[in-house]
């Protein structure tokens, strides 16, 4: 053992794990995040993986990454650039070196740095450090594969299983560097491989050996300690990603509405995990139908809604396109339904595993006819729970379809979540018509919400017909009367607008008035907030107005916008929300900051932009 190394205390650190998509980097990153969360740090993660399941080994196209930001105060993003990069092969190094902070640490599995590995990664020379100009970085070449083999040679495991454990060796090294305790991860092995004690022991050994190896080498002169966060509110916590949170939010709405949850869906990246989670939840009575296509997904949901279930359908961009016609059907039949769209890069198949916000117009307008729809957007992995719940509440109480927008970034990103209690959530009261009601009129409405009431098949005396043809304003029978069509169109418009009365006022973070108001919506919240905070720390008058309610917009938007000299709308598309605001509030001048690279904003580029805007550039 070498003598005790210097431990430096720091407030925040970003680590990126990268390797071949078969190298187990997502698991490695997840374990590091969970251990840090259990230790008491604030954590935000983002996986970055290719759309190929197994691209050719060792190539740039097959590199899978997982970035995590841990802090002793609240962190709201997974961080732009990392302090430590783990690269399990030359391709991972080449793909990710640009994401390392100047002077940062890079750990490379030296066993993969050979002619073949370098060539596959596209290196022209045998010196990746020079080629990538990494001379000023702390690059540690460790023989991770060989050391893993040595560590496990007496365990009796086969060669393939041994090699597969090299990610745990690398994780052990990172644990040493950041003074993380090992017992959280050891406990994970014990639970995960309960029936295979030899695997538990092997994993524990290789993790510890990685830890000890890092302690012994001279290349790591000091280690870091990120103290547990003290500002975090007391309570029980768990890690959650946006997709799981959406699934659970729907289940919560179903419980509060006392209606069975039905999900009709078709797998599509990056929304599939919602269906996967709901399929597991048969223990709570959830019915999931994986049907033949996206259209059947929404149409089975509409059928289930007609029959009295709380129905949802899950999808991503191209799937939403396929569902458009049926969304119109749900609108004209005025049935409750939630359509969740986990946005990804488009158009067409686009960038299936990457994040974007470019389906906003599709959600608002992508249907034939005058077809207004409630649109809300979640903004963090954990508040996907609340907005899924709310989407259900609005759909059921207002008798109308609701689009819930999330995106690949918050769907796959994780953060610790203070576990709420269901007693703090409101009841959901769907306007179901009781048996024995006389003179039922399918399209008669309540005055407050303009919601029609819901008569469920199987209820005596309420037999009625609905469908896609224009409805008589009261009886719901087919009507081609011109004035009736005008009247029904007006009602459908007004019905969505009335939702304004049932949603909170818009809030702005920062100053009551000031030089610059940053405007965003949905999943960019963490990056926008962090950037605005940085500006404010530097004494700049910058505030943030971040939207979750898109249609209808909250009532007080105009009043907020009027208090700032400049408005900058930042979004991961070409300016859809900015244009939507222009349409709604023409009196303001909207500057734009747009990015369409399949990646979240970085705090660095946002801060740069804000400064430019303030300086009038």
């Amino acid at each position: 053992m070498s003598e005790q190394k210097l431990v430096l205390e720091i407030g925040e650190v970003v680590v990126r794990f990268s390797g071949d998509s078969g190298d187990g980097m997502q698991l490695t990153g997840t374990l590091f995040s969970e251990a840090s969360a259990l230790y008491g740090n604030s954590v935000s993660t983002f996986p970055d993986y290719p759309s190929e399941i197994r691209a050719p080994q060792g190539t740039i196209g097959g590199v899978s990454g997982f970035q995590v930001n841990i802090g002793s105060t609240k962190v709201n993003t997974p961080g732009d650039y990392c302090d430590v990069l783990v690269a399990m092969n030359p391709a991972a190094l080449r793909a990710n070196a640009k994401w390392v902070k100047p002077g940062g640490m890079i750990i490379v599995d030296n066993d993969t740095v050979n002619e073949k590995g370098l060539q596959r990664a596209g290196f022209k020379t045998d010196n990746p450090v020079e080629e990538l100009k990494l001379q000023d970085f702390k690059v540690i070449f460790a023989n991770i594969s060989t050391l893993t083999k040595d560590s496990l040679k007496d365990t009796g495991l086969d060669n393939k299983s041994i090699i597969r454990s090299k990610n745990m060796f690398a994780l052990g090294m990172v644990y040493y560097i950041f003074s993380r305790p090992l017992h959280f991860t050891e406990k994970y092995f014990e639970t995960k491989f309960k029936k295979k004690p030899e695997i538990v022991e092997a994993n524990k050994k290789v993790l510890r050996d990685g830890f000890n190896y890092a302690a012994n080498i001279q290349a790591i002169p000091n280690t870091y300690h990120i103290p547990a966060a003290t500002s975090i509110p007391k309570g029980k916590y768990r890690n959650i990603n946006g997709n799981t949170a959406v699934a659970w939010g729907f289940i919560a709405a179903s419980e509060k509405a006392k209606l069975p949850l039905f999900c009709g869906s078709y797998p599509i990246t990056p929304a599939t995990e919602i269906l996967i989670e709901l399929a597991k939840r048969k223990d709570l009575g959830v019915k999931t139908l994986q049907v033949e296509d996206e259209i059947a997904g929404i149409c089975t949901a509409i059928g289930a809604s007609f029959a009295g279930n709380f129905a949802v359908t899950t999808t991503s961009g191209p799937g939403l396109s396929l569902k458009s016609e049926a969304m119109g059907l749900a609108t004209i039949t005025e049935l409750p339904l939630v359509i969740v769209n986990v946005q990804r890069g488009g158009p067409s198949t686009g960038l299936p595993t990457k994040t974007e916000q470019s389906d906003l117009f599709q959600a608002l307008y992508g249907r034939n006819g005058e077809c207004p729809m409630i649109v809300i957007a979640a903004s963090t992995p954990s508040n996907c729970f609340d907005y899924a719940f709310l989407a259900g509440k609005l759909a059921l109480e207002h008798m109308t379809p609701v689009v819930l927008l999330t995106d690949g970034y918050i769907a796959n990103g994780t953060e610790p979540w203070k576990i709420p209690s269901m007693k703090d959530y409101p009841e959901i009261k769907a306007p179901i018509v009781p048996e024995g009601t006389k003179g039922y009129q399918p399209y008669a409405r309540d005055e407050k919400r303009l919601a029609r009431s819901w008569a469920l098949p199987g209820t005596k005396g309420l037999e009625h017909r609905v469908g896609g043809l224009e409805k008589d304003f009261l009886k719901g029978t087919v009507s081609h009367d011109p004035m009736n069509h005008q009247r029904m169109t007006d009602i459908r418009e007004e019905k969505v607008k009335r939702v304004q009365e049932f949603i909170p006022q818009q809030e702005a973070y920062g100053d009551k008035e000031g030089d610059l108001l940053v405007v965003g919506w949905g999943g960019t919240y963490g990056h926008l907030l962090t950037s605005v905070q940085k500006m404010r720390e530097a004494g700049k008058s910058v505030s943030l107005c971040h939207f979750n309610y898109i249609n209808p917009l909250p009532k007080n938007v105009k009043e907020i916008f009027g208090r700032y000299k400049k408005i900058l709308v930042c979004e991961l598309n070409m300016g859809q929300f900015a244009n939507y605001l222009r349409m709604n509030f023409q009196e303001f001048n909207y500057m734009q900051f747009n990015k369409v690279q399949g990646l979240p904003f970085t705090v660095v580029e946002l801060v740069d932009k804000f400064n430019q805007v303030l300086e009038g550039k």
Partner: protein
Amino acid sequence: MAENFKYTPQDFKSDQEVRWCPGCGDHFILNAVQKALPEVSHILNYDIERYVFVSGIGCSSRFPYYVNTYGFHGIHGRASAIATGIKCANPTLSVWQITGDGDALAIGGNHFIHAVRRNIDINILLFNNEIYGLTKGQYSPTSKLGSITKTSPFGTVEHPFRPGELVIGAQGKFFARSLDVDVKLTSEIMIEAAKHDGTSVVEILQNCVIYNDRTHGAITDKENREDRVITIRHGEKMVFGKNRDKGLILSGLSLKVVSIGQGGFTIDDILTHDAYEANPGVHMMLANMAYPEYPVALGVIRNVKETTYDDNVRDQVLEVMKTAKIKNVDDLLNYGDIWEV
């Protein structure tokens, strides 16, 4: 027959004016359904509120408006999916899908075959008039090769679907066929379809008096009908003809029409219909018989028992719930890796 029935056909008539063209085959079918439902209700002990009629788009799809039950007029091709959602959400409902050859076999082909494959317990009444009527006369996936229509002025160049073959190919367990004009037979088949647990597909050869008049004329004309169709019933000999003197035998691997009393064939040589046989071989041949080579088979051709999708969906949920550790959302949120700050 109907004295002790709870309902009469009148109970199933809605207040909406029936707007199909005069002479359209759909009138007969509506009549047959309204006739069958009182008996179905009697046999299966259903009250009227348990029925849901679901349709897509097309002339036939206006059907739900004319039946005084719960009804859903959907969008083009999607009725099977909507019906699947309704049935899974509430398996106690009796769900009837009304569809046409375009709605079910063209735009809705995917949903149709998957509904059949899953064996969801719905009854699909497929009105086959071999034409698009509502859009005024374009060819459909069942139009005969060479059909002259508005979009095939020189004749179609594509081979039609044979609905029975498609249903059996999709592992269908119930397939029956009737003629629009034969209200009695259609009613009888409806009752069998309702009794069958699983997807029941009933093809009804229907006349479009405006755009495809007499497309089934060769077999529906009264004077020749008995010689050109064969109505088969489970357990009965497959005989037909005005004089009941023709029948079907298996000759090699094919069906063959023979005259009873000629060429040494007696009634004992004639096949007996077994609708319950799981092997689809003979059912497929019966479903595919076409005039003039063969008489067209009417009646319940295939009626095989199998578990249904909606039962399986429901039972699996109930089974998992029985031993579930997670009983409510609070349990769910607090399950797994939790830590305390």
